[in-house]
């Protein structure tokens, strides 16, 4: 049974992405007791799946590493992975949360030696690469995973494969009898940081994501550019593995659209500008085309935009693409009208990247706690939420910088609640 020491002066953080980690660490470093609940087997959330960060074009790994070190050093922080909050009762200052913990089948003894992974042959789509690669049934979710511990896929349970994994482990780290458990955690305040998910590109019917293999999404493109990703960092066409040198980006794919997401997702213009670098850095003879309605690179990001715009091999076409078709060589062909001059085009590219937007990861109506959301499904800063405070991209489509600022604010609000509790309890 998982033991968690907690009182109603404890702060519960739900979601261990960059926002949840920030809120948890900020609170724990002021001396508060914090429990962090993360659904995935590791911390870091979607940031861990990015190749580089705008605007500095540095690697997210270094920021995550600093946070992981802070987490390891802090005795006030308890981390539960593969865990989800299923209910919350009570009120600000005295909540009880129920948390469901799914079995990892691997305990603290694991040294991440990798022998179990070698021993099994069963393979599954790799969710870390958005299904672009496969992983074994005994696996390390990613090279930077925290905790650095293997996971046994529950689908293998009861098979020879699971037994093979167990037999291969020299550290007695695999326990196939682990069960899921439900525990209750008292807490005074909750920081809700469950983040975002990419909009389902298959729903944008005219763009053919579900029909054409050389039409991919921006989140998949991040994985493709990563040297530890599915293509070893090579920018290629999924259809034939050939180099993709003539790449098109379609902006607002599913955002700012009453048929899809109502809101502007805010980060996808910058994500595309960053990804233009991936292409031009990879191939000296690359050509990149960005099809856009308007480029929303605000404040200091304007510079970043200006630099990309100055590149000879990147062109900007002011047009929301009407439709995508595919020619005999599986090249995507983009159709539409360039609104600067009203020129009709049918442009052929090697690869098309859809700049899909961000929507809340928790669907409206499936929050396990009472919470006020806006029409886009993001959490509102409403007084009705009591001691539950949204942090990061669960509250809006935010980049990392803004998510982290927002999470720090949420931590402060949570601290105020538990301080009040501490005051009344002496």
């Amino acid at each position, binding site marked *: 049974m998982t033991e968690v020491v907690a009182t109603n002066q404890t702060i519960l953080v739900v979601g261990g992405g960059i926002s949840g980690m920030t809120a948890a660490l900020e609170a724990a470093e002021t001396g508060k007791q914090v429990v962090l609940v993360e659904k995935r087997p590791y911390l870091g959330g979607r940031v861990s799946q990015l190749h580089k960060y705008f605007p500095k074009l540095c690697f997210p790994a270094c920021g995550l590493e600093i946070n992981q070190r802070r987490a390891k050093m802090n005795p006030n922080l308890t981390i539960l992975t593969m865990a989800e909050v299923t209910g919350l009762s009570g009120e600000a200052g005295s909540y009880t949360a129920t948390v469901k913990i799914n079995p990892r089948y691997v305990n603290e003894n694991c040294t991440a030696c990798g022998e179990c992974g070698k021993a099994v042959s069963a393979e599954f789509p790799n969710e870390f690469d958005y299904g672009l690669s496969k992983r074994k049934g005994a696996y390390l979710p990613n090279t930077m995973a925290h905790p650095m511990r293997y996971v046994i896929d529950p689908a293998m349970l009861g098979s020879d494969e699971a037994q093979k994994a167990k037999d291969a482990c020299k550290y007695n780290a695999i326990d196939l009898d682990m069960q899921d458990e439900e525990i209750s955690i008292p807490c005074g305040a909750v920081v809700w940081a469950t983040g975002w998910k990419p909009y389902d590109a298959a729903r944008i019917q005219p763009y053919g994501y579900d029909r054409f293999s050389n039409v991919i999404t921006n989140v998949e493109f991040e994985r493709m550019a990563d040297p530890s990703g599915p293509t070893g960092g090579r920018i290629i066409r999924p259809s034939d593995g050939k180099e993709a040198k003539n790449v098109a980006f379609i902006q607002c794919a599913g955002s700012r659209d009453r*048929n899809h997401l109502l809101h502007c997702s805010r980060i996808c213009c910058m994500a595309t500008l960053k990804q233009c670098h991936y292409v031009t850095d990879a191939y000296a003879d690359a050509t990149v085309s960005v099809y856009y309605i308007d480029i929303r690179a605000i404040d200091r990001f304007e510079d970043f935009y200006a630099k990309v715009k100055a590149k000879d091999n990147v062109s900007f076409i002011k047009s929301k*693409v009407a439709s995508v078709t595919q020619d005999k060589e599986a090249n995507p062909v983009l159709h539409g009208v360039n609104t600067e001059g009203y020129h009709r085009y049918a442009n052929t590219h090697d690869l098309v990247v859809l700049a899909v937007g961000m929507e809340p990861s928790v669907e409206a109506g499936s929050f396990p706690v009472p919470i006020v959301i806006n029409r886009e499904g993001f959490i509102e800063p409403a007084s009705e939420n009591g001691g539950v405070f949204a942090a990061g991209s669960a509250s809006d489509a935010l980049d990392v910088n803004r998510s982290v600022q927002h999470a720090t604010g949420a931590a402060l609000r949570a601290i105020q609640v538990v301080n009040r509790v501490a005051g009344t309890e002496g």
Partner: protein
Amino acid sequence: MSDLNQNMIEKYRNSFLKEVEANVEEGEWVKMCMQCGVCSGSCPLGKHWAHPPQEIFMMIRAGQREAVLSSDAMWMCTSCYNCIVRCPRELPITHIMHGLAHYARRLGLAPKGQPTMAFAQIFWDNMMKAGRVNELKLGLSLYYKDGFVQGIKNSLANMKLGQNMIKAKRMNAVEFFGGHGVKDVSGLQKMIRKAQELEDARIAKYGK
């Protein structure tokens, strides 16, 4: 040019957008267009027009009254609804196109001899006679609209189509003699006349 046209120019001096909003069916939607270009890119007829929908909306906002209202563009719309389905702002583009065409015709600015307009008139007159469209007569009036000789040519060119329609019971040769109508033709005609009066009254404030 009609007095109505002159009066509208006076009333909406400098704001063609306001004029469109007040007088064109669904015209109040025009300002919602964000110029993304998807409608123009999606329009199957687009390459045959002088101005695809999004350009028309821009021209309205830019106050290009003459150019818009005397344009052939709105008359080219086939009501395929491709644009409406894809417009990220849900503008009823097809209806605005028809609304603009109708308004241009009212003001006497529609291009002379515009074939869609001519057909629409033939369709309307045909329909008003019996309360339903007589396909045979409609086809014939259309073929003969440019005179007898051209009419014979058109009829011969489309003979096969006509024969097939008769075979598939989509058209009946007997309809040439009178043809059948709705039960209460005069009632229908009265209703339409009333609607016409209401619209005329609305617009009479500015016309002669």
